[in-house]
């Protein structure tokens, strides 16, 4: 059993990038980098909880790993049961590649297992004295050297064997349980016969099926569903979150194999996906990536990730892609300074009446779904865009920026980290809209709490995305001063950290079913002195602080460093501790 454990260790090394949330993944390489110091101060003890919960509960298997494991399992059965590799292979397949199940069944009743798998004892077969034998398929007689038999001894000529096995291989994975052609016989035809009698092409196909069976028939392994990826994931059953990330960087849910959807559960995801396909025709227009500018009516294309749109000159009207409202109007009404996630408030304001299209939709009672679907889909495409930007950053821009700013690329890691955070947050945010759609309307307190957390997270993400997308551009294209760039570094790293905290809060809250809603409801009404007394749970403090800032944003102040809206009586920023 040693070899299996060794393999886990070997894989641990190169799969560290899986956990965006685990903290240590982000800062694994250069902990002593000055730029990150305040991030460490900033983090509270909840990070430790997350790290322990996020302990890797899966292993990525590349094709070579899979072959090696399969070989090892076969060898193990061979030596314990004293059977051929051919037989070991068939036994393992029969018992879904579970070594201990094979052992158990074999030692409980060897005869029964042999019968079920078609493994005859060679000793039951008496060799013939005849010089020639008739083939059971073509009915011609052949000299013995042209005849082959499985363990049962039924004779078929080699040509017929080849055709028989080849037909079965080309019929599909059923070839792995091929039996002697004599219907009443049942003797297994295994990999030895295949190797002896078929073409190289068929041998390869057979090996392919054997490898697939090793993953697909095993309860603990699944293929990565990303197109073109040959890796498989072994999952430790019964061990928390199902989200796994493959070497190819695709993240998916091991349980339902949809793309990763933490913190939303599989049932909600499958309902949502069904709903989407039922509504897909109605929704096509939403996915269109151009909308008329609400002011000048010229079509404007969304080619950037964040929702803040600016119309072409001379109009230059700034608006929100989601609600087409004026950008500067975005505040408490829409769920936050940068956020636009509240369906109810948008509806009350009559924002939806502006478009005739939407009026039609309302008639069909699709309005509510449309709201959630549009946000879900937009975050999806925004994430795709961010992935592309991240790639561009890694392959082109980072080197360019390094030259321009005379900084080694290792010092620019904060940019990559920002983009990784954006990609991950877009994914989480996207799924929270599916969650929101199914959150019962009558659970008002939960809804409010959810929309509050979602709004906070979304606002943080929009600030981060905008900063990474637009502000960074200025440093790519013109030489800013060293000081300016260092400010930018602090700001982007700060936003990354802030956003990460918001999303951790959101993920945690959804994963425990918004159970903290009562604590939240109470604290948002109590005075600040009570919060300061520190009686409430540590993980809630940030969220509570920001409520005060939010409810009073006419008199609050926006932090220069991270743009966080602080309450008017705060002397330093509650997010990044920058003094006013």
């Amino acid at each position, binding site marked *: 059993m040693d070899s299996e454990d060794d393999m886990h260790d070997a894989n641990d090394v190169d799969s560290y990038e899986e956990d965006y949330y685990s903290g240590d993944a982000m800062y694994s390489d250069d902990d002593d980098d000055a730029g990150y110091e305040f991030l460490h101060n900033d983090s509270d003890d909840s990070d430790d909880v997350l790290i322990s919960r996020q302990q890797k509960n899966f292993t990525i298997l590349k094709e070579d790993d899979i072959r090696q494991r399969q070989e090892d399992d076969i060898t193990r059965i061979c030596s314990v049961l004293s059977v051929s590799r051919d037989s070991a292979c068939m036994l393992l397949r029969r018992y879904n590649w579970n070594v201990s199940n094979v052992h158990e069944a074999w030692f409980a009743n060897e005869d029964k297992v042999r019968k079920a798998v078609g493994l005859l004892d060679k000793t039951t077969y008496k060799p013939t004295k005849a010089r020639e034998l008739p083939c059971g*398929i073509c009915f011609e007689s052949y000299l013995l050297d042209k005849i082959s038999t499985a363990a049962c001894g039924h004779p078929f000529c080699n040509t017929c064997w080849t055709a*028989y096995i080849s037909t079965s291989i080309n019929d599909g994975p059923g070839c792995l349980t091929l039996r002697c052609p004599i219907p009443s016989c049942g003797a297994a035809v295994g990999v030895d016969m295949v190797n002896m009698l078929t073409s190289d092409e068929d041998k390869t196909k057979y090996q392919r099926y054997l490898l697939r069976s090793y993953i697909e028939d095993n309860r603990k392994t699944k293929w990565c569903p990303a197109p073109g990826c040959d890796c498989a994931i072994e999952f430790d059953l019964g061990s928390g979150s199902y989200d796994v990330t493959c070497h190819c960087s695709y993240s998916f849910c091991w349980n339902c194999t949809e793309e990763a959807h933490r913190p939303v559960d599989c049932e909600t995801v499958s309902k949502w996906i069904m709903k989407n396909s039922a509504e897909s025709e109605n929704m096509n227009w939403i996915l269109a990536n151009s909308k008329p500018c609400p002011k000048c009516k010229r079509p404007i294309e969304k080619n950037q990730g964040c929702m803040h749109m600016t119309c072409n000159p001379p109009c230059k009207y700034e608006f929100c892609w989601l609600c087409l409202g004026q950008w500067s109007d975005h505040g408490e009404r829409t769920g936050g300074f940068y956020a636009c996630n509240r369906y109810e408030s948008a509806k009350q304001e009559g924002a939806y009446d502006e478009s005739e299209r939407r009026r039609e939709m309302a008639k069909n009672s699709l309005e509510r779904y449309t709201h959630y679907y549009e946000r879900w889909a937009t975050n999806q495409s925004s994430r795709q865009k961010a992935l592309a930007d991240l790639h561009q950053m890694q392959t082109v821009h980072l080197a360019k920026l390094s030259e321009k700013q005379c900084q080694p690329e290792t010092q620019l890691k904060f940019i990559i980290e920002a983009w990784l955070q954006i990609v991950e947050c877009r994914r989480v945010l996207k799924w929270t809209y599916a969650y929101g759609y199914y959150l019962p309307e009558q659970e008002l307190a939960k809804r409010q709490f959810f929309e509050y957390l979602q709004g906070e997270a979304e606002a943080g993400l929009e600030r981060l995305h905008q900063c990474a997308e637009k502000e960074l551009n200025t440093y790519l294209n013109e030489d800013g001063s060293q000081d300016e760039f260092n400010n930018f570094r602090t700001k982007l790293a700060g936003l990354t950290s802030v956003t990460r905290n918001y999303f951790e809060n959101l993920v945690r809250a959804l994963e425990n079913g918004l159970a903290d809603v009562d604590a939240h409801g109470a604290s948002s009404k109590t005075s600040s002195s009570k919060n300061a007394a520190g009686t409430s749970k540590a993980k809630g403090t940030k969220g509570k602080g920001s409520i005060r800032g939010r409810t009073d944003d006419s008199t609050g102040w926006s932090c220069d460093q991270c743009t966080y809206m602080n309450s008017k009586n705060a002397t330093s920023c509650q997010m990044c501790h920058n003094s006013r």
Partner: protein
Amino acid sequence: MQASRARLFKEYKEVQREKSADPDIQLVCDDSNIFKWTALIKGPSETPYEGGVFQLAFSVPEQYPLQPPQVRFLTKIFHPNVHFKTGEICLDILKNAWSPAWTLQSVCRAIIALMAHPEPDSPLNCDSGNLLRSGDVRGFQSMAKMYTRLAAMPKKG
């Protein structure tokens, strides 16, 4: 193509030689096409098909015997696993349980066995399948007998 023809020719010679070996089955190869056969089979005794003679049509694919022949009843028969209109037969050995060791002769034997032991759980004829599944054996038998008399027995002139 060559292999299937050779194999069918072997079966043909075997049928000629063993004409009287199985009196319940009479296999005949088409005069001009070795891939087309017909068979006359006798309804098994102690079944509603007793006394009837049923005609089967075989269409043999070029991949024979690696692929099974297509067989259907030309004679109307009331049987849960035979389509009443087309005569298609639902029998595992004619599908995924086919083995190249089967012959046209052994397929006929398997069909006779199916006539004696219907499988009401995979019906091609729902009426007869339902009769059997609901336990109305007598109802099933009288229908089957009637069709045997109407379609599978020589008309008394």
